[in-house]
Each structure stands twice: as structure tokens, then as C-alpha cells.
């Protein structure tokens, strides 16, 4: 990295595609869906230029499967979709988690459920990102709030996926995806650090044996190592097992692996929280409105802070608890019926009152709506 930056006008979805290429992404498989198609369109132009591969698949499930296949082969792979497509990808996302296949899944969130409002924004896939695939599993999901952050979080998504050997979900809401902003990007961005490939004697290679990092080195097909990847519960040798101790050890390591890399994964912003009576929790475009609202509230003499998780999963619990130490009231502003609020309620004490500022009509939350909620909350507290 030279430190040199250049100013560019970019749409969020294009920033995602360009940041992916800058991070080293050389494979994209996807299926057309609003409002994420610009990611695929940009990738279809950019990837052939760098000798990468763009492939339009027959459906969302196939796109996710192709990403896993390519990533196993050594590609730095991604796909992008929106609500209905995100639902269809879930089973293969689980396969990516259990086989520890690095990849990035972008979900440009629109209004739901079902077909919902395809051209309208929403933040209703927060819990689907967390629990969309079946069974116990860890998840990494990031939610950028600006085009600049789409750039940095896309790069970070690849860095995490490659280093930790896990699928990473990037939750961009439609507003951020289609927003055009002036951003300062690295003039000479460097690819993210690549994944750890297995070295040494191929004869005794165990594809799921992990050292202290808890991330097993990957076997590259063709390099002489025998590796068996399976969605069945498996031991260090990669072969299916129903042995309780081995099954437990596999899943425990998958969880611990994410926790071990928390410093790489966790990202949040806490603004004016130290003395706050009220803390707003918001992410994505809702956090932009919340930022404006907190700043206006401060000017009006109110002690209001903002806690903005950039990493939604795993939720930055400790940081949140620290940021809300002095707050008796917490407002969770999100474009859904209160999905992150459930998590916040879990993390607060009985002395802290949690309420939501929610909207799910296809329109973003305004600073005024949050200000009104702050006023009401203040009155209730008094």
C-alpha cells in the first residue's frame, strides 16, 4: 500500500465489485436479481481483464455451489444476490461453513418477505444472515453504511474469508448499494493476504487438522494432497464420522475459530457514548440517519450517543456493553420489525430500557423519526 488515494465517484454496488477485484477476487458466479445486479455486471466487465472468471449460473443455488467449487480449487470467489436469492443460497452457505471454504456472499437487502419490494430498501435479512442455514454454526456478517465503507468492508470480507477459511456475508442495504458517493480509495490497493495452503509431506496430510490458529491449512487440488471435503460431520481426516467426541470437536473448533479471530472480524463505531443517557443502535443506511439525529440531539443539549456495529455477526457484545454503560435507554433503529433489537435485549440489563425505531414500508428511516423517538424516550424516562 502506497498510502496514496484517489477520489472517485462510485455507486455502492460498483464499489463492491471494484473492491473485490482489488482484494484479489478472481471468480464470480451469480444470477440476475434486483437490486444487486450491478455487482455482477461490473464483475462481468472487470474479471476477464485480469484473467479471472465470471460465470452466470442457472440459478442462485448453482451460483453458490459454483463459488464453493471454485474456491476449493484455489480461486478467491464471490457471489452477490438479494433476499430471495439469499434464501436459496442458504444450504450451500452451510456447506461452505462446514467444509471451511473461503468465499464472500453479498446480499443487497430489499424489502421482504418473499418477492416483497424488489427495488425498495430493507434490512430484513439480519436474522437470516445469522440463522439462515440449518444447524448450529458460526457466521460472519458485515454491514457497511456508506460507499466508502462498502469499499473497505468488501476488502475486509475477503481478508476474513481467506484468513479464517469461512464464508463471509456482506449485508448492503439497497440505499447504500445504489448510492453514488465520492470516495477516496487506495490508488494502488494490494490484494488481501492469501489463504494458508498446506505444505510439507503430502503422505500424512490431514485436511482438517488445525494448529493454534484453529484454521486448517487448505489442500490445493493437484498439489499431491489427498483431501475429502464433505458436508457430513467429519474428523481431521475429512471423512464422515458419527463419533460423538469427533462431532463435538469439529463444531466446537468452528465456533472457536471465529472467536479466536475476533480482532480481525470485529468492527464497530461508538460515538458520544461515554456520558450518554440514550444510545441509538443502528447499522447500514439507518446509521447515517442515526448519526445525523445524534448530532442534532447533542446540539440541543441531550446526552445521546450512537453505537454502530459494522460487524453484525458475531455481534460486538463487549463493545456494546461498554458503550451503553451509562445509558438507561437504548433505541434500535432498523428497517425491519425489530431483528437486531432481539439481540440488544439479550445484551442489556433490566435497568436498561430497549425500544425500536422501525420501518418496513420500503422507505429509509429519517433523522427526524429518530429525533422524535429520542424525544419520546426522554419524556418516558422523566
Amino acid at each position, binding site marked *: 500500500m502506497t498510502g496514496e488515494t484517489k477520489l472517485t465517484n462510485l455507486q455502492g454496488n460498483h464499489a463492491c465489485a471494484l473492491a473485490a477485484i482489488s482484494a484479489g477476487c478472481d471468480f464470480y*458466479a451469480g444470477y440476475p436479481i434486483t437490486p444487486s445486479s450491478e455487482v455482477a455486471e461490473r464483475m462481468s466487465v472487470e474479471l476477464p481483464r485480469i484473467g479471472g472468471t465470471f460465470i452466470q449460473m442457472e440459478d442462485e443455488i448453482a451460483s453458490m455451489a459454483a463459488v464453493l467449487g471454485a474456491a476449493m480449487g484455489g480461486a478467491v*470467489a464471490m457471489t452477490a444476490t438479494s433476499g430471495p436469492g439469499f434464501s436459496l443460497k442458504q444450504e450451500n452457505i452451510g456447506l461452505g461453513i462446514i467444509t471451511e471454504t473461503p468465499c464472500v456472499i453479498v446480499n443487497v437487502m430489499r424489502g421482504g418477505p418473499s418477492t416483497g419490494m424488489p427495488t425498495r430498501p430493507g434490512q430484513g435479512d439480519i436474522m437470516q444472515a445469522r440463522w439462515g442455514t440449518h444447524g448450529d454454526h458460526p457466521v460472519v456478517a458485515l454491514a457497511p453504511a456508506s460507499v466508502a465503507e462498502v469499499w473497505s468492508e468488501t476488502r475486509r470480507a475477503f481478508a476474513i474469508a481467506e484468513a479464517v477459511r469461512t464464508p463471509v456475508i456482506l449485508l448492503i442495504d439497497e440505499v447504500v448499494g445504489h448510492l453514488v458517493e465520492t470516495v477516496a480509495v487506495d490508488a494502488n490497493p494490494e490484494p488481501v493476504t492469501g489463504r494458508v495452503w498446506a505444505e510439507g509431506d503430502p503422505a500424512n496430510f490431514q485436511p482438517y487438522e488445525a494448529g493454534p490458529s484453529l484454521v486448517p491449512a487448505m489442500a490445493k487440488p*493437484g498439489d499431491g494432497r489427498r483431501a475429502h471435503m464433505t458436508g457430513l460431520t467429519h474428523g481431521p481426516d475429512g471423512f464422515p464420522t458419527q463419533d460423538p467426541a469427533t462431532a463435538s470437536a469439529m463444531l466446537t473448533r468452528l465456533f472457536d475459530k471465529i472467536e479466536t479471530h475476533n480482532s480481525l472480524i470485529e468492527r464497530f463505531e461508538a460515538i458520544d457514548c461515554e456520558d450518554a443517557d440514550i444510545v441509538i443502535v443502528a447499522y447500514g443506511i439507518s446509521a447515517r440517519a442515526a448519526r445525523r439525529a445524534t448530532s442534532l440531539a447533542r446540539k440541543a443539549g441531550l446526552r445521546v450517543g450512537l453505537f454502530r456495529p459494522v460487524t453484525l455477526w458475531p455481534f460486538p457484545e463487549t463493545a456494546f456493553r461498554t458503550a451503553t454503560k451509562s445509558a438507561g435507554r437504548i433505541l434500535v433503529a432498523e428497517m425491519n420489525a425489530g431483528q437486531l433489537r432481539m439481540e440488544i435485549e439479550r445484551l442489556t440489563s433490566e435497568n436498561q430500557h430497549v425500544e425500536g425505531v422501525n420501518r418496513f414500508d420500503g422507505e429509509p428511516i429519517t433523522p427526524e423519526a429518530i429525533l422524535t423517538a429520542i424525544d419520546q424516550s426522554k419524556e418516558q424516562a422523566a
Partner: protein
Amino acid sequence: MTQLQKTSFKASDYRSDNTPIWCPGCGDFHVLLSITKALVELGTAPENVAVVSGIGCSSRIPAYTNCYGFHGVHGRSLPLGAGLKVARPDLTVMVMSGDGDGFSIGGNHFLHACRRNVDMTYVVMDNRVYGMTKGQPSPTTEPDWDSALSPGGTGLSPFHPLVIALASGANFVAREFSGDIKGTTRTLVEAVRHPGFSFVEILSPCVTFRPDERAWKTQIHAAPVEATDDPARAARRIMTDDGFNVGVLYRGNRKPYNTHVKDTAGDPAILEEEFEI
């Protein structure tokens, strides 16, 4: 890096130590043997072969080979194999499936894999039944086959994979019988060598839930005519044959899928300039 490269292999080099979970007498044992024999003839090192599968009895096969194995979710082995092959054209990719995995839940991928024509080999072990879930009708099951899930039969017209492969653009179409190890091996070798998407349907009896399929070995016979390169003629033959003639039925000459064929977007600098201020 002066490691000696092995240039010739034995069938056992392609077999892992894992014991198959298949029932005694399952046709898939013979398919596994034919695959290892075909790989010996092809001479490709085990590590340069990727065996990809979905879910079902036949999909357990990667674990029994010594190749790079990927055992994915139900029905999605073809797109996974396609992603691997386009990212790694240097690998020999063999996708393994069964009639339930490949033609029911994976049916859409089958159509598009044929038309996309990625250079890989698709082997479907067809036993006309869901074996792993203990005997339910599959897309290739006869309409009057009685089971706990289909009392009196499904009454549904069976799926015709070979004809559908032809209509969808597969570049190589063959039918084999698992018990004919010599013929199956020969066809698999040719299928792997043939450019583009090669589809080999192997009739592989399920002796547990379809004991009637034990009779297949007496019904099998060689295809009476040479393979054609005309898909319409091949389709007509297949639709009117007795379903038991084996061998290569169609050899096409379509160009395999290539992601690096076009560069119509022009100079990247032009696009960048549009956005820079």
C-alpha cells in the same frame, strides 16, 4: 523440488482405504472399479482428478477414491463441479450422481450443464430408486412400481435422461451397465477424453430395494449401431430402443465452454476515467 513424478498408476492407486457403505451386490461397487480402471488407462495422477458428488448412495463414491473429493449437498454437484473446472481447467473433473440426486432435485442443473458444455464428465448411477432413504420412486422409476411412498405406483412418465441430455446440448452421450466393467471402463475413458460435457448413464442395480433389477444383466446388449454425431438421430434411436443397449450413443463436436473468449469491454482506463474526478 526434485520429487519423482509417478507416470503410471495401478487401479489401487485410485482407491482409498474407506469401506463403502453400499449393500452387498450393489452395482455401484462395479462402477467404482470401472472408474479406477478408466483412470489407470487415462494415466492422470490421482491428485489431478477431482471427484465431485451430491447426496445419495452413489454420491458416496468420492470418499472411496484417492482423488480430490468433494461431497456436496443434495442435487448440486454439477454447478460445484463447473465452478471447480472453470477455475481450474487443468484438473480432470468427474461429477458423480444418482437418478434422484441428478434428475430430480438436480434436474435444472443437468439441463444447464449440458447446454453450458463445460469440459467435464457426468456419471449418473441410475437404479430407478432412492436407495439411501430406503426405497422411494425417483424420476426414472417405472410408473407402476409399488412402494410405501407410492402405493400402486406413481403413474408418472419416467424422465429420459439421455434424450434430455441430447436436447440440452450435451457433447457426448453414453449408456452403460455397471456389471459390464470392460465396456463401462472403455466408455468412461472416452467420455473423459471427449471435449465438453460428457454424460454417461450407468444402469446400476439396487439389489435391496429393486431386486427385480438383478435381471438387467440378462437384458443388456451392445448398441446395434455406431454412435452418431447427429443429436436428432441419436434421440430418435434412444427413444425407440429397449432401454438396454449400451455403449457410446452420441459424439458431438460443440466447442467446450470457455470463460476467456471475449474482451469486448475495452480499455480499463476508459472506464476508470469516467468515475475519477
